[in-house]
């Protein structure tokens, strides 16, 4: 950037730029979104200030006002933005914007600020120009960018853009570099879900790798198989198994000469992680665990001896499992038991390891209650929950989800497990959960979601279409009395099978979330996330 001469020009242009921006904001607002009173007021204020500014013609008070304006502008951006996106895009507006806003008041000189802003603007403009002029190929850039105010583009995860050939190509390239096999999608996908992977269990990821697994650690291969066959299922189990496999990887790891452990090990893990996500898309809990481990690895000082570093990492994995999963479940069950009173009829859905744990604990604490296990096809995981509860001696009733509205009048509480808790308070869980929450709400039965805080996720999602998982459609095929219906479903052109794994439940249907930090409403998820981020 041409700094010396750019400065003056910038400062001259500045006020007009501000003007344009404001107008943009106003325009955006007028474009058919409702304005809250607050926003209207703020806008009015801004306009006034602007006029004043112009009158003053760069007088001494400018600095003050600039500052004010900046601080006013910055928060107004996300406010205008978030409604602007139609639901799907994972908005990280608040996160990406906040550093910009925070930065501003730190520097006192208005000129510097103005200059920087202008520079950013020009950069942005040139980038935009390039993008629009050059290739229009919808690469990984989401359509979140039309609002030019947002400088940081959040990359879309590859597992939700399978229908985009460019993204697929990129993925294939990455996997090839990492020597991880690419699993091909299976069968016809129901429309609206073509952007998700759909794998067949009959076509395991190990098909293409050498049998004494050399590139990928054997324990990772084993884990991947167990994921893809559903032997290890459920967020908690998957995270524990993942961490266990990582422990073995670290155990067998030795730093190659001229490499640094903290760097090399992270690099070594990334093909493993891609392999696992080829076996089954990673869960939010696994994502968090991986993030944690990677951070711990990169925190290891370079002068640390290898043995020492490995020991530390293993200890840290152990403590992660202990704190975030085992102790967390203890804490949650302590809170949850308070909510279970004698004579309760508790409805649970599917097989949540945490809910099972809570119920067993409560039973051991001599609470008198009975449980209704609701189950659904195709996995019928409720059977396993039923088995575990009945084995403990808890009185249970087993119904399928179709009998839900029949059974609900006798229910006093609904306990649900969660796959992840999203930043907007939505609960992501096994498909069917939102239906249960909805019906429970209709019957005025309190819905309690139990979830460890390590499953909290910064993603925002308001529907189950954007980011979800498709399981093997062949699971839906049933053989009864020797007859298999749907056996040749692939040959019927007009037929698609959809085996959806998750859905999201809006916070309106959830009365309470029980976490290891206590009982909170859904809407407090961002608070917990923020606190967690500060902690780390």
């Amino acid at each position: 950037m041409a700094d010396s001469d750019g400065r003056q020009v910038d400062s001259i242009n500045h006020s007009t730029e501000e003007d344009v921006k404001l107008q943009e904001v106003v325009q955006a607002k007028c474009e058919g979104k409702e304005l809250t009173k607050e926003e209207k007021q703020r806008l009015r204020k801004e306009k006034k200030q602007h006029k004043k500014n112009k009158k003053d013609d760069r007088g001494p008070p400018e600095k003050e006002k600039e500052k004010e304006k900046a601080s006013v502008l910055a928060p107004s951006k996300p406010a205008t933005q978030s409604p602007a996106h139609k639901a799907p895009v994972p908005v990280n507006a608040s996160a990406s914007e906040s550093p910009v806003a925070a930065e501003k008041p730190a520097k006192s000189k208005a000129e510097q600020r103005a200059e920087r802003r202008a520079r950013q603007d020009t950069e942005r403009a040139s980038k935009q120009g390039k993008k629009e002029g050059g290739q229009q190929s919808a690469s990984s850039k989401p359509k979140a960018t039309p609002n030019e105010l947002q400088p940081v583009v959040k990359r879309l995860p590859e597992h939700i853009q399978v229908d985009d050939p460019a993204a697929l190509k990129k993925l294939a390239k990455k996997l090839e570099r990492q020597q991880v096999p690419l699993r091909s999608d299976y069968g016809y996908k129901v429309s609206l879900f073509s952007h998700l992977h759909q794998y067949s269990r009959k076509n395991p990821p190990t098909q293409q790798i050498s049998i004494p697994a050399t590139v990928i650690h054997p324990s990772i291969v084993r884990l991947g198989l167990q994921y893809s066959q559903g032997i290890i299922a459920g967020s908690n189990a998957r995270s524990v198994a993942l961490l266990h496999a990582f422990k073995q990887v670290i155990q067998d790891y030795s730093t190659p000469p001229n490499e640094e452990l903290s760097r090399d090990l992270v690099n070594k893990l990334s093909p493993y992680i891609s392999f696992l996500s080829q076996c089954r898309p990673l869960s939010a809990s696994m994502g968090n665990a991986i993030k944690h481990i990677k951070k711990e690895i990169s925190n290891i000082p370079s002068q640390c001896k290898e043995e020492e570093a490995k020991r530390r990492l293993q200890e840290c994995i152990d403590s992660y499992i202990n704190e975030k999963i085992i102790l967390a479940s203890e804490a949650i069950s302590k809170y949850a038991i308070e909510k279970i009173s004698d004579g309760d009829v508790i409805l649970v859905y599917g097989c949540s390891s945490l809910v099972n744990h809570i119920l067993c604990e409560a039973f051991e604490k001599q609470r008198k209650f009975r449980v209704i296990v609701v189950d659904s096809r195709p996995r019928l995981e409720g059977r396993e929950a039923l088995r575990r509860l009945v084995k403990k001696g808890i009185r249970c009733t087993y119904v399928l989800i179709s009998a839900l509205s029949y059974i609900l009048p006798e229910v006093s509480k609904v306990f649900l497990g969660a796959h992840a808790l999203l930043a907007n308070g939505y609960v992501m869980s096994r498909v069917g959960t939102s239906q249960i929450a909805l019906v429970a709400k209709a019957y005025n039965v309190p819905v309690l979601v139990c979830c460890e805080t390590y499953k909290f996720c910064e993603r925002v999602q308001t529907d189950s279409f954007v980011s979800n998982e498709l399981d093997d459609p062949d699971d839906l095929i049933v053989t009864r009395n020797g007859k298999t219906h749907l056996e040749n479903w692939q040959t019927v052109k007009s037929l698609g099978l959809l085996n959806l794994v998750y859905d999201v439940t809006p916070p309106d249907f959830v009365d309470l979330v029980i976490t290891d930090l206590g009982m909170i409403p859904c809407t407090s998820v961002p608070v917990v996330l923020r606190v967690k981020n500060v902690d780390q």
Partner: protein
Amino acid sequence: MELQAVLMAAGGGSRMMDLTYNTPKPLLPVGNRPLIWYPLNLLERVGFEEVIVITTKEVQKALSTDQRLKTDVKMRLDVVCIQEETDMGTADALRHIQQKIKTDILVVSCDLITDVALHEVVDLFRAHNATLSMLMSKVHEFTETVPGQKGKKKAGEQRDFVGMDVTGKRLLFMANEADLEEGLVLRKSIMHKHPRMLIKTGLLDAHLYCLKRSVVDFLVHNKSVTSIRGELVPYLVRKQFSKSLNSKNRMFGVHNKCTSKDEALLQLARERSCWNDHRGDMSEAYHGGKLRCYVHIMEEGMCYRVNMLAAYIEANRVVPKLFEDPPIHPTAVVSERSLVGSDSIIGPFCQISGKTSIKRSNVGTSSTIKEKVKITNSIIMNGVTIEEGCNIQGSVICNNAVIGRGADMKYCLVGSGQRIEPEGENDVVQRSAGYTTRTKTHTLQFCSSAVFVLNPAFCVCVCVHSHAHVCLFVCVILCVYVRFNVLIAY
């Protein structure tokens, strides 16, 4: 390292002595490659870089000299010799090489020819953390007439009873007909845990096993087990349901000691997982057992164990179609006036003269076939000379045999180094299966069930045949084997 491959190639081939009398089983030519190449190729294809080959001195020598095998197999072969005389079983052999075994092992027999997707077997082993996983396939019905075998079938082969759970993967039960006294006895402990069991017969054990490292440790501690198939596998299958967990821990505990903390984590993961391998009772996944055996049954594809003459012939017929070698080796000299069918393969350095016709046959290395010879459905091994005017059908001719002029052979087995004289009276062996044979003056007619093996000194062939145009006769071949038994045919 995840898996080490062990190739068992020390077997004598006792079930096809006729062929293996002079050539060790691993070196028998199948589709003009030594038999041992097929399992080696299977292992190499899936990505093994090193194999421990347990074999005899003789085979080792051959392996080190065989140039073609060397160029074909790029893996590192770690050849371990064992003495033939000691009569070691396969489990003994594993015990013998136990210092070399660092990880779980994949044991393959040298007579296995298959195009199985090996990952199926290994994935069962991996996913379920199994102690044993093995490969089986449907038994083949051999349709071709087998030389040297009379009547229909030997009643000999004893059936295996293999019990599986509802998924068809878990191996619950295994028994051989020979071990049964009156009926099939199922233990209550199995029925208790697996009330629905599928028992199958007609399965061929491919002798391909994935075994846990701890099993080798177990073998070291239990010297009485000599064979993998005969003793170890049935023992492991049985042990899945035995109550005495303590004794099992004692036996398999050697390896588990250091990993108890890992075990705890795995246990935790399993507890949290909502998966179960069965339903209908109150017990946890795998019924809490630590020892698990799995089997993968090939539904389609090819799987042969070349341990009998019939299988050998069948394999020779099928195998060339699967490996895309040129049917006629470039170094072979084939006369233009000969007729070689596309379903035949001709080995290197062969000489085939004019007016010959070769159909559905394999001709081995450096064999010479002279004029006016007709060969159908036959296997000619290496270095065989076939003189003018022979007609050979459905026969197996072993290494370095010489077939004299004008021989007419049907379903014959000629042992290695044998010489069929053109006009020798003593070699006339005939047996007709109820049809008419004409004996011409200069044609020697060999019919089915003629066996020429071993040293002529021990081979007494007595033939009774009528000179009439319509002849019905009984042919008695009396083969005295070198060391042992007397085989009397008629």
